[in-house]
C-alpha cells in the first residue's frame, strides 16, 4: 500500500519570499564556502603577468595596460617586487600632464600581497577590507608568481563547481543507465550490509548508503523516500532486537526493489502482534533513545507494496519487503536524444 501523497503547498514549493530555494541551491552555496577554503590562490590566479620596472615612463605603462586589457601592473626591480601601479595612478599623472615621469614616482610602494599557497578566502577578505581590486601573488621565496583579481576568484569557483557538477552528472549517468547498458534476461543489483546487534553508533548507516545508491540510480524521489523509511526501520530492528545482528539486503531490478533482512534469533512468537501500532518489546533503555515506539513494522507496511515476515522462535526471522516501480522509470525518464553526458572536460 503506497503512503498517502500530498500536494506540496505554495510555500513549500516557492519558499516564504516567493523565491524557489531548492536543496541544490543550499548545497551549492555551502559548496562555494567550502571551495573558498579548498581552492588555493595559485589555482585561480593569472600566472603569466606583464610587469613594469621603476624607470619605465608612465606613457609606456599606459600602452601595456591598454594592449593587455588589464588595469594594473606589479613593478619589479632585479626580480623583486617593489611596487604596484594601477590605472588610478596613471589618471593622477594625466591630470598633471605628467605621463613622461617614471613609474616609481606614482606607484604604490607598500604593496599588499598574498601567498600562492593561501586559500582564496584570504584574498577575498583583503579585497573587502582594503577595497583593492588586484593583488600580487608571491611564492615561498617572496618572488612574484602571478596576480589575482575578484574576477579570477569568481571564474575559479565557477570552474570548480562546474567540475563537481560534471563529475556527479557522469556518475549519475553511468549508474542510471546501468539497467539499459547491461543486457541479460534479468539484471539485479544486490547491495548487502552486515548489521551488528546493539551497535547504535552505526544506526542508519546502511540506510544512508542505500539512499545514495538509489539517488545515483535515478530512482523516483517518492520511491527513495519509501525505501529509506522501510530499510531504516529494518536496519534498526536488527540493531535493537537481534541476538547476533543480521544481514540487510537490497535487490534492485528495473521493475522493483526488494529489501530483506535475515537474522538468527531470537525470533518472533506472535507475528500478528508486531504489526499492531504501539506494540513493542524494546527495553526501557532503548525507548529512552526514541526507539521502541511500536511503529517500526507499521511504517514498513505503509511504505512497502508487499511485506512478508517469517519467524521461528529460537531460529530467527526473515523479513522481505517489495516496492514496485511503475513503468520501470529508473533514471527518471526513457532514453532520449539528449541523454549523452558531455565529455569535454
Amino acid at each position, binding site marked *: 500500500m503506497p503512503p498517502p501523497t500530498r500536494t506540496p503547498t505554495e510555500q513549500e514549493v516557492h519558499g*516564504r*519570499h516567493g523565491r524557489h530555494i531548492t*536543496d541544490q541551491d543550499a548545497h551549492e552555496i555551502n559548496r562555494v*564556502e567550502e571551495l573558498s577554503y579548498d581552492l588555493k590562490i595559485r589555482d585561480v590566479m593569472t600566472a603569466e603577468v606583464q610587469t613594469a620596472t621603476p624607470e619605465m615612463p608612465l606613457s609606456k605603462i599606459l600602452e601595456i595596460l591598454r594592449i593587455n586589457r588589464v588595469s594594473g601592473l606589479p613593478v619589479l626591480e632585479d626580480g623583486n617586487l617593489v611596487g604596484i601601479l594601477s590605472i588610478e595612478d596613471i589618471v593622477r599623472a594625466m591630470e598633471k600632464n605628467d605621463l613622461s615621469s617614471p613609474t616609481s614616482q606614482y606607484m604604490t610602494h607598500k604593496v599588499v600581497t598574498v601567498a600562492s599557497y593561501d586559500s582564496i578566502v584570504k584574498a577575498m577578505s583583503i579585497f573587502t577590507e582594503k577595497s583593492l581590486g588586484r593583488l600580487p601573488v608571491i611564492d615561498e621565496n617572496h618572488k612574484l608568481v602571478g596576480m589575482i583579481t575578484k574576477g579570477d576568484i569568481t571564474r575559479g569557483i565557477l570552474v570548480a563547481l562546474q567540475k563537481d557538477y560534471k563529475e556527479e552528472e557522469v556518475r549519475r549517468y553511468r549508474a542510471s543507465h546501468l539497467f539499459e547498458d547491461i543486457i541479460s534476461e534479468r539484471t539485479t543489483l544486490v547491495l548487502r550490509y552486515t548489521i551488528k546487534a546493539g551497535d547504535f553508533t552505526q544506526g542508519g548507516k546502511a540506510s544512508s548508503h542505500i539512499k545514495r545508491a538509489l539517488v545515483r540510480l535515478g530512482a523516483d524521489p517518492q520511491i527513495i523516500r519509501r525505501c529509506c*523509511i522501510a530499510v531504516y526501520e529494518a536496519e534498526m530492528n536488527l540493531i535493537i532486537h537481534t541476538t547476533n545482528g543480521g544481514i540487510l539486503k537490497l535487490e534492485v531490478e528495473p521493475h522493483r526493489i526488494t529489501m530483506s533482512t535475515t537474522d538468527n534469533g531470537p525470533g518472533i512468537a506472535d507475528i500478528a502482534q508486531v504489526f499492531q501500532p504501539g506494540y513493542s518489546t524494546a527495553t526501557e533503555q532503548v525507548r529512552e533513545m526514541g*526507539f521502541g515506539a511500536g511503529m517500526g513494522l507499521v511504517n514498513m507496511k505503509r511504505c512497502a507494496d508487499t511485506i512478508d515476515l517469517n519467524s521461528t522462535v529460537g531460529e530467527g526471522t526473515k523479513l522481505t519487503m517489495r516496492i514496485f516501480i511503475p513503468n520501470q522509470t529508473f533514471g527518471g525518464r526513457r532514453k532520449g536524444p539528449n541523454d549523452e553526458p558531455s565529455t569535454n572536460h
Partner: protein
Amino acid sequence: MNLQQIIDQLNLTVLTEARGFASIAPTGGYSSDLLSCVMAGAKKGFIWITLQAHLNIVAVAALTEVAAIIVTENAQPDPASIAKANEQGVILLSTPLPTYEVNGKLWELGIRN
C-alpha cells in the same frame, strides 16, 4: 523566514559548523522524540524539534533531509554526535526552552506546515 532569522529570533545555540543559514528556508516543522514517527512524519526541509540528543538523531535527520534539528531543554549531544552531524551536513541547534515553547514560537514566526 530563513534559518538564520530563526536562530536569531529564538536565540538558538548553533552546535555544528556555521554554514549558509540565511540561504536555508525551512518549509515546515515536526516535533517528536520517537524516531519512527519522525521518519514517517518529517519532510525534507522541515525543522525537527526534539529533546533526544543521542547519535541516532543525526542518522534520522540525514535520511529525512530535515533542514535542522532543534534540541530542546538543553539536552546535550555528545562530541561524537556533533562530529557526525558535521560530516553528514546535519545542522544541530540547541535551546533551554521546552519543545512546546519552541513549537509556539516557530508557529508565530510563520512556520505553520
